[in-house]
């Protein structure tokens, strides 16, 4: 299990360093070509995003000089940027790949973008043939672990940005936002961003009111909305289910009496006010009215913080899941290393059994089906008993460093074919590992 991970990410390097390592998508195939040409590198892939540039590789050897590749590829001097580069090997490399795919290593833990980015990098490397065997298995497993973490923890369920929290709250009030109308009071950037999120979630009608009417018209045009003259604000506000306010007014624009009037017009249908302005545009007293919900920038920020806290708690559970998956993956790999020998041993003894049966069959004369079955059972029983100890020893040795020695001893003792032939036999019989596990073969 000679996996290696080397690179820089948001934890080890600032953006000015990360950008020196960035590999544009168009240059990725060329970089992959150079990576797989490095001495000892059997497979490799490169994940290059704004938060990380990481090389995942597998080698036949215990060592693999990826540092040299990085120096040569990016044209660094020895020692330059070295302090920013991290490296993981074997089990730690597997853990890192699982953590990255599961978004546990992300800047915003639980964000979903990274999984897509790793999948893209994997697809590129696979298309080039740079990933084809064990690294393929590692990545496939990493995607399964990421899915498991997402499904079995709440790591990605809550929103962690102001705009997405606004959408989440609106959905908590109105259910589906489909067909809901939004009123933007003021034409600030935050207003626009929140409106974009709401539209993406189904909000249909957009009204824009601004003291400078032309700016209202310009913003409304972006959303195919309707610009409303500012002096008609209070008459038209009840049309909207969600009001986002971000004017630069030094005093409140919406007060309790306005809220009461709006509710009367709307027959008490709920309204959601989002106040992004500082000083505030909306009197907090409005929140006391039945059916009106007011959230200012601090309230939204508080929700974001609470969600981030929730994600951190869930991340602890997710880390435990990743640990368990790393252990399983390692075990599977170690067992897989002794499988060819076990398969060879089984075939060798089975051939001996068949040869001996053929040899004595003439002397035994005509056997009844019952006798035939008894002879089969007897010979199989003997073979199974002989095989039991070597197989158990091989399987238990798979978890120890002396696995290779044990494999060599067994091969010499039983005069088995080469490792490659055994591997081919194992490949030809995909059920072999399962049968070995169940002890039926």
């Amino acid at each position, binding site marked *: 299990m000679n996996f290696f991970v080397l690179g820089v990410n948001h934890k080890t390097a600032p953006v000015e360093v990360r950008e020196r390592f960035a590999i544009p998508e168009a240059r990725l195939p060329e970089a992959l070509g150079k990576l797989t040409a490095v001495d000892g590198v059997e497979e490799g892939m490169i994940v290059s995003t704004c938060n990380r540039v990481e090389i995942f590789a597998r080698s036949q050897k215990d060592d693999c000089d990826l540092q040299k590749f990085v120096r040569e590829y990016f044209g660094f001097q020895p020692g330059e940027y070295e302090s920013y580069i991290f490296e993981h090997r074997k089990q730690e490399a597997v853990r890192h790949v699982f953590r990255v795919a599961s978004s546990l290593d992300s800047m915003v833990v639980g964000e979903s973008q990274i999984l897509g980015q790793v999948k893209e990098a994997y697809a590129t490397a696979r298309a080039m043939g740079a990933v084809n065997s064990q690294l393929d298995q590692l990545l496939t497993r990493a995607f399964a672990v990421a899915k498991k973490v997402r499904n079995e923890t709440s790591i990605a369920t809550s929103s962690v940005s102001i705009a997405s929290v606004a959408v989440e709250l609106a959905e908590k009030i109105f*259910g589906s936002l489909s067909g809901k109308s939004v009123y933007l009071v003021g034409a600030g950037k935050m207003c626009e961003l929140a409106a974009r999120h709401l539209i993406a979630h189904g909000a249909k009608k957009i009204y824009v009111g601004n003291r400078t009417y032309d700016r209202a018209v310009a913003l409304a045009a972006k959303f195919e909305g309707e610009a409303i003259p500012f002096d008609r604000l209070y008459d038209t506000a009840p049309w909207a289910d969600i009001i986002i306010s971000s004017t630069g007014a030094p005093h409140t624009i919406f007060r309790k009496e306005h809220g009461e009037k709006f509710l009367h017009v*709307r027959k*008490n249908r*709920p309204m959601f006010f989002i106040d992004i302005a500082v000083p505030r545009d909306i009197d907090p007293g409005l929140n*006391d009215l*039945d059916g009106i*919900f007011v*959230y200012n920038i601090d309230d939204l920020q508080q*929700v974001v913080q609470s969600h981030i806290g929730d994600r951190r708690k869930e991340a602890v559970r997710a880390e435990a899941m990743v640990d368990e998956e790393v252990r399983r993956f390692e075990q599977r790999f170690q067992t897989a290393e002794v499988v060819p020998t076990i398969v060879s041993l089984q075939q060798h003894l089975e051939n001996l059994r068949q040869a001996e049966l053929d040899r004595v069959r003439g002397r035994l004369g005509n056997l009844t089906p019952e006798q035939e079955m008894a002879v089969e059972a007897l010979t199989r029983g003997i073979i199974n008993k002989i095989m039991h100890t070597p197989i158990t020893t091989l399987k238990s040795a798979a978890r120890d460093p002396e696995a290779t020695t044990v494999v060599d001893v067994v091969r010499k003792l039983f005069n088995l074919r080469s490792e490659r032939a055994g591997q081919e036999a194992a490949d030809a019989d995909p059920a072999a590992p399962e049968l070995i596990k169940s002890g039926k073969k």
Partner: protein
Amino acid sequence: MPLLWLRVATVLYAVGLIHAILMLRQRGERSGKVAAPAVAVGMVFHFVSLYETAALFGLTELLSIRQAESALGLLVALCFTGLYLRYKTASPAAFIFPLIFLLTFASAISQHSVGISSSPIYGGWIVFHVCTLIFGYAMLFLSFVSSLLYLVLSRQLKRKQTSSWAARMPALQEIDELGYRALLIGFPFMTIGLMAGSVVAEERFGAAFVGDPKVLLSLLMWGIYLVLLYTRWSAGWRGRKAAYLASFAFVVSVCAWGANYLSKLHRFVAP
């Protein structure tokens, strides 16, 4: 045997209730993992109990107060299942399960069976009266629970609290729609159920039946039902005001149901 099945159902409802309460502060949708299956299995036993009762003692036995309470419990459990399937959340369980449990428990510990005294002439009217009113009561309860859920969720949103319980709840407007629909559907049942009862009572007791506490409370309940609908329709009452009115309607409906034990005219007596 029907009583045994009913008691098994009561135990399962109790399991669901305890779990729903314990899970109020838990993260994730774990309450649904025990509460919903417990109630689903409970409902099967509950249904078998009612079915066996009808098979063993005849359909009129289902008109006894014990069986009527049991049937109402099953109907409310059915409402919960509908909500669970529709909104994929067991959050309303903490509000609905107490009533399911109480109705079933009261029915399960009852030692004797008493039915409505009726002559064959009015048998059909009484069956109609009981069935429609049970449905009306269930819908009234659903609308009451919706009002409470609306109130609690709306308070949490106003106080900027993000409890896991609230996070699992349906949206405020969905709860509101649910309550309103329950009112709209339940009201005609309540009205024609009471009318059917009045026809029977008029025939048997003449105008005197109007002074009976059970009848007065039922009329009051119907009146509040009407007010609930009207305020909702005309002024769109939601939140606190609607919740108070719905709570009042619920208290009156409990009294109206309880009056079955007190009323001289509307008594469930042995046939």
